[in-house]
């Protein structure tokens, strides 16, 4: 079978499928469970300085299989208690990427240091949660802030730093360039797309917080566009996320330029077994295509485009 391993941000992964942040990532047992189900690595829930309960319920709204709206509000036990969860996942051999969120560069840097202490293999900076006041995308939509925060974190840890970017911007490439200038080893794209649902009978938003973030198949085209644009704009690698459910979806992201991908909503759609299915199906698909490994595919959609650039005779 084809070799599915990949390298990104200094991590050697057995396959490109990472558990996305905020999914199954509150407890060590769940992180371990995702890894044992086949994930190449796991990303923790975004962790902040202090414990946070998040928004009241309802925190989610599900459409047919194509879409999912959430406003969890970054619940997390706080960095003080979280290292024990990381330890459980690490004990099972899982490469753990620690996701952190904060209000400013200093807070991000402190959290990063604590995560390093807890033994994570890399950091992901949540610069992109679409529904948290003074956090996430509210700070992550300015290139200067992305650069400043990334630089602060990079200067305070030796870990590879991944900046997770928001699609709620007119120019995600500018955000990626800012992360690159700040010293990021990679960027992930995308976090959820700002969205809302309204209950017609009750005449009110269905999420307690009002605003939420859209995930699932509906945002795959948006994530692909972002990854494609970022791949053109920077030299650091991209990790694709948004709407991946099948191996075909993952291949689209690889072709757009992603060196690894994250799986979120698909866990709700198909259960944690989705990791096993993805690994099996991607392997089969590569065999069918006669492709030995991922390297040949990563970014290939750019090469094809360049090769034919409108001349009308390439095939």
């Amino acid at each position, binding site marked *: 079978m084809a070799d599915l391993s990949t390298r990104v941000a200094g991590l050697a992964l057995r396959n490109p499928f990472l558990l996305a942040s905020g999914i199954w990532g*509150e407890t060590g047992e769940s992180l371990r469970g995702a890894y044992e189900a086949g994930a190449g690595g796991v990303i923790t829930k975004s962790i902040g300085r202090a414990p946070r*309960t998040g928004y*009241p*319920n309802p925190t*989610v709204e599900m459409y047919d299989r194509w879409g999912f709206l959430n406003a969890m509000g970054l619940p997390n*036990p*706080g960095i003080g208690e979280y290292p024990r969860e990381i330890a459980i996942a690490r004990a099972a051999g899982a490469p753990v990427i620690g996701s952190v969120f904060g209000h400013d560069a200093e807070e991000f840097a402190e959290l990063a240091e604590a995560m390093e202490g807890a033994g994570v293999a890399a950091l992901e900076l949540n610069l992109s949660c679409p529904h948290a006041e003074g956090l996430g995308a509210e700070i992550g939509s300015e290139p200067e802030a992305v650069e400043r925060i990334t630089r602060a974190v990079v200067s305070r840890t030796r870990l590879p730093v991944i900046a997770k970017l928001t699609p709620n911007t007119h120019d995600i490439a500018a955000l990626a360039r800012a992360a690159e200038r700040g010293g990021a080893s990679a960027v992930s794209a995308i976090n959820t797309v700002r969205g809302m649902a309204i209950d017609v009978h*009750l005449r009110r938003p269905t999420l307690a917080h009002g605003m939420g973030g859209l995930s699932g198949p509906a945002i795959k085209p948006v994530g692909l566009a972002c990854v494609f644009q970022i791949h053109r704009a920077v030299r650091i690698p991209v990790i694709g996320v948004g709407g991946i459910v099948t191996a075909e979806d993952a291949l689209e992201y690889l072709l757009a330029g992603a060196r690894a991908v994250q799986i979120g909503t698909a866990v709700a759609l198909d259960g944690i077994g989705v990791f096993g299915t993805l690994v099996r199906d991607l392997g089969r698909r590569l065999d069918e295509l006669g492709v030995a490994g991922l390297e040949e595919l990563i970014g290939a959609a750019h090469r094809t485009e360049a090769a034919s650039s409108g001349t009308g005779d390439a095939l």
Partner: protein
Amino acid sequence: MRRIVPVSDRTVETPSTVTLRFVDDRPAAPGQFVMLWVPGDDEIPMSLSYVGPRKGVTVKVMGATSRHIQGISPGTPLGIRGPYGNAFDLTPHRVLLVAGGSGAAVLAPAAEALGARGGEVEVALGATTASELLFEERFAAMGAAVHVATDDGSRGERGFVTRLVGGLLDRGRFDAVWTCGPEVMMQKVIAAAQGSGVPVVCSVERWMKCALGLCDACALGPFHVCVDGPVFPAERLSPIPEFGHTKHDAAGRRVPG
């Protein structure tokens, strides 16, 4: 996925427990729960105490939302999504039910479903005091023998209902024990059944947000109560250190409970 249903009936079951009924035609099985949205307040998990097209939830006062729910009058619209989670396996023939507090809410429809298949139940029903015994008449109406214990001895045996379990298991030939109540209680039930060869099945609770197996709020060891539960065979729960000891709170901290 979410439906808005007006409350059709409100019944005060005990001083601390109220049943709300509503019409909803999604199929549901005993053991499953819904996420019940009280607009403007909160959305919380509630087992279905009635699983037919006229569904019901039986709510015990815990805090602000459950108190609010209890005061809701017929006609008020509530949001529901689900039913979620798994259900009781109805293949055993004779089942001992051990209910503590609001635990009877989920065991009553299971008992009725078993009865409809020709099965039989015997019930050990516990409460703090006589007036808090939940669904005693509903169990009796099925023709079940109901054995009662109250903490204050105001009805039946004084003390915890778990004290009844050993004796009942010795006497009756049961194919299973189904239990729902505080986890320390369920642990005692498991202990009492140990050696009897009768398998114990527990319905457990954890904090719930998505109810879709995504957010991890309801993690219990390797399981997610919203999709792997809430009904578990005891042998899956017993090895989990948290069972009977800790829960995750809304922030995901491990807290006693």
